[in-house]
């Protein structure tokens, strides 16, 4: 049966097989980013590739359904974000079995559920670490803040009076920061 809101398993399978090289590069970078963002994951022995693998499995099993209209790459990145947050709260022991693995990726977003003081402190540290990365590039940080505020690139360009080339240049600077952040 076709679900209008979410992609089917077959559609997800097909889309995964059709991912381009650029998509794969983005996904591994996203996995490394969310892994680096949750510093404690490394201590728990979780590899970035595991986050990505779980995102695929949760999407295919339907535990983390892929909403139509969202690109697969963004969907998988969001899966990795929530999975990494959940592992931090519950530990890697849950990564033992296939069923548990999928369940991890089903939890609601950390941003809406996590309430422990420890987690909030950790989130503040994470924000601070990103903020510090941009102390030498206020313009790039401004773009980032506007993106975080939910603005689309076109809106940001209009508000900051940036040409397409200038916006791309800033994006490249942000990517450089990201690669230094994950390495």
């Amino acid at each position, binding site marked *: 049966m076709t679900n209008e809101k979410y992609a089917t398993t077959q559609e997800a*399978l097909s889309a*995964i097989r059709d*991912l*381009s*090289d*650029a998509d*794969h*590069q*983005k*996904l*591994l*970078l*996203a*996995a490394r*980013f*969310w892994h680096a*963002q949750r510093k404690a994951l490394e201590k728990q022995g979780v590899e970035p*590739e595991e986050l*990505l*693998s779980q995102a*695929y*499995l949760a999407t*295919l*099993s339907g535990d983390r359904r892929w909403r139509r209209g969202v*690109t697969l*790459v*963004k969907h998988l*990145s969001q899966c990795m*974000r929530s999975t990494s947050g959940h592992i931090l709260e519950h530990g890697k022991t849950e990564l033992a079995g*296939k069923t548990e693995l999928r369940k991890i990726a089903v939890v609601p*977003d*950390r*941003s809406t559920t996590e309430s422990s003081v420890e987690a*909030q402190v950790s*989130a*503040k540290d*994470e*924000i601070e670490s*990103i903020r510090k990365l941009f102390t030498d590039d206020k313009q790039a940080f401004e*773009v*980032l*803040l506007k*993106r*975080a*505020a*939910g*603005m689309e*690139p076109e*809106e940001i360009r209009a508000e900051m009076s940036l040409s397409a080339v200038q916006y*791309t240049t800033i*994006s*490249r600077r*942000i*990517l*450089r*920061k*990201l*690669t*230094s*952040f994950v390495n």
Partner: protein
Amino acid sequence: MEKKEKGKWNKPEGLAEAFCEVMLDMDAKTLADTLTECGLSPKVLAEKSRSVAEEALERFGKDEAERVKDVGRVKALHEGLGALLVLLRRKAGLSQEEVSKRARVDVEEVRAIETDPTVEPSPRTIFQLEQLFHLPERTLVKLSGITTIPNEEFTEGVTRFAADARAMNTLSKEETNLVNAFIKFLSTWSESRK
């Protein structure tokens, strides 16, 4: 725009997400060029990532095959449960309604167990039926698929029984023997032998 900003500004995840999204929004060429500038090989990165996808697809395929196999086994068990319930009921000379009344279970569930192998019986009903027919403990449970899914040897035994039982029209001595032998098989089969 004001509303949007209020929505995400103060959420810690928003900034991290935006950091990642800028990268996700990039076109292939800009991404590859920038990665190269950063000393990362786009080709190696893509290959590594692709292998993660391939492994996940392979694993999903195996999990799915196992799941389908389990579904098939449970269906076979339920076929056996339905056939056994019919024979036990006829052996006791009871109608479905009478079984329902005496066991204090829903008559619709009794009918469903007898005729629809896709229906999952409730643990309470299984317990009540064991009590009603004075069966050794945990005999019907083994056919319910509620606790464990037994191995192929057990499932094959159940399938053979269901086929033989369904072929019988009247409750003969042979039929009674079949029921008794099957109950013995059920009660002696250990659940630890998966």
